[in-house]
């Protein structure tokens, strides 16, 4: 490397400047909206918890949802893959489209939605099966049973979740025998095995130690090259580190939504500023 710099000395300055410019341009570039939310509302019985949420989540970017407890961010993320269906007495109105598909339309196959929109939870929940079976579960229930196909998918997914090297010698062992961070990466592998387009992450690192957390964050940097990622997090520094765009919620409303560096250095709304500077709980 230093050899190159020596021989290229007169040009080095120019080259570095163009590289820096290219990086900046790509971060700022607005991508196609993968997920379009228009005036989305949700109520649990009498409790109206999401009010007229409208936002576009960009393709292959990481979008962080932040806000105090009860602000609606987890509720919103669960709308994207219809997880709120599992709760009694929920009413949803407004539109939510994933790659053009109306998620809430009667004709929409909810199972297909949950394949295309994967999810990872705060408390990782591997099945009480082997590591291998955990990863290929989604493929098996889709009817794929060819060993070669499953083997390939298993390795690809475990590599994609940065877990392959740690478990390749023990794929037959129980998924529950892994460390917290490994179990979470196993859940990520399981989610990406069915080749989703979107990955939802609800506080994926809250239960993990700092090193496991950093590993997952590093993984997110890689995953975003292939998947659109939406992450809910209480950890503002994490949101600042991993996301490209940040949306701040307060009492069920979207208050501010923008470029992550801008939100964290010069937010436009005083409510946003007060929240991220910790001037109220």
């Amino acid at each position, binding site marked *: 490397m230093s050899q190159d710099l020596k021989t290229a000395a007169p040009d080095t300055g120019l080259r570095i400047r163009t590289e820096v410019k290219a990086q900046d341009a790509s971060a700022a570039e607005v991508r196609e909206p993968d997920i379009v939310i228009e005036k989305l509302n949700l109520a649990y019985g009498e409790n109206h918890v999401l009010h007229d949420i409208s936002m576009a989540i960009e393709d292959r970017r990481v979008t962080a949802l932040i806000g105090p407890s009860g602000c609606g961010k987890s509720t919103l993320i669960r709308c994207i893959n219809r997880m709120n269906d599992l709760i009694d007495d929920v009413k949803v109105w407004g539109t939510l489209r994933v790659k053009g598909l109306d998620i809430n339309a009667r004709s929409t196959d909810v199972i297909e939605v949950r394949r295309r929109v994967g999810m990872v939870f705060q408390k990782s929940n591997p099945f009480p099966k082997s590591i291998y079976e955990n990863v290929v579960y989604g493929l098996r229930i889709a009817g794929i049973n060819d060993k070669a196909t499953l083997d390939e998918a298993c390795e690809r997914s475990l590599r994609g979740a940065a877990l392959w090297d740690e478990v390749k010698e023990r794929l037959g062992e129980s998924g529950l025998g892994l460390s917290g961070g490994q179990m979470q990466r196993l859940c990520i592998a399981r989610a990406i095995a069915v080749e989703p387009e979107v990955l939802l992450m609800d506080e994926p690192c809250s239960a993990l130690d700092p090193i496991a957390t950093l590993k997952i964050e590093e993984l997110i940097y890689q995953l975003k090259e292939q998947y659109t990622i939406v992450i809910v997090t209480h950890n*503002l520094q994490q949101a600042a580190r991993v996301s490209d765009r940040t949306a701040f919620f307060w009492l069920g409303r979207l208050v501010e939504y923008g470029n992550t560096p801008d939100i*964290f*250095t*010069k*937010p436009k709304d005083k409510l946003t*500023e007060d929240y*991220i*500077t910790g*001037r109220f709980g």
Partner: protein
Amino acid sequence: MERHHFEEELQALKNRLLTMGALVEERVHQAVRALIDRRQEEAERVIVSDKEVNDLQIDVDDRCLKLLATQTPLAGDLRLITAAMKINADLERIGDQAVNVAENVLKLLPQPPLKPLIDIPRMAELAQQMTRDALDSFVRKDADLARDVLKRDDEVDNLKDQVFRELLTYMMADPGTIQRALALILISRNIERIADHATNIAEDVIFLVEAKDVRHHHQEAEAK
């Protein structure tokens, strides 16, 4: 829920900066007085009193670094701390320029005055007022006052050019005046630098308050 501990730390940081600002302003004032009243002792005092300002500079930077690491400040807090670090550097430079003025005064004093001083004291007054207002704008988070400081820099620059032209004619007419004329030209340059540092502080205040970086584009600074 307020962040009491953090607020106290921020206030302590601001106080340190203001103390430094006051010290530096006093130093400039003394150096200018030494020039106008031809006071050797006062000039010498300015030269030896740098230590206090330097110690404060190190303390301010240290506090800023610690706050960045331990409190992970964001938004306005983050801009405050980065502004503090920059203002810190500009204040220390203003202090240095005051010392330079004093050193040049000592070069002048052995000989009789070359001419009545009019432009240089005027420059000094402007530069001191700019420094005072820049620091005030920081305390009061007053971006309008900061913008006003930016506007005054041109007058200081013009006076410096005027001083140079006038002293040039003296030097051309009589080589015996060169030593004193050069010392005066250097002093006018020191004062012009003080005004420049005051405008830097004002630019940092505008960034702190409005999150707008107006450096190098003062026209944009005026168009709000």
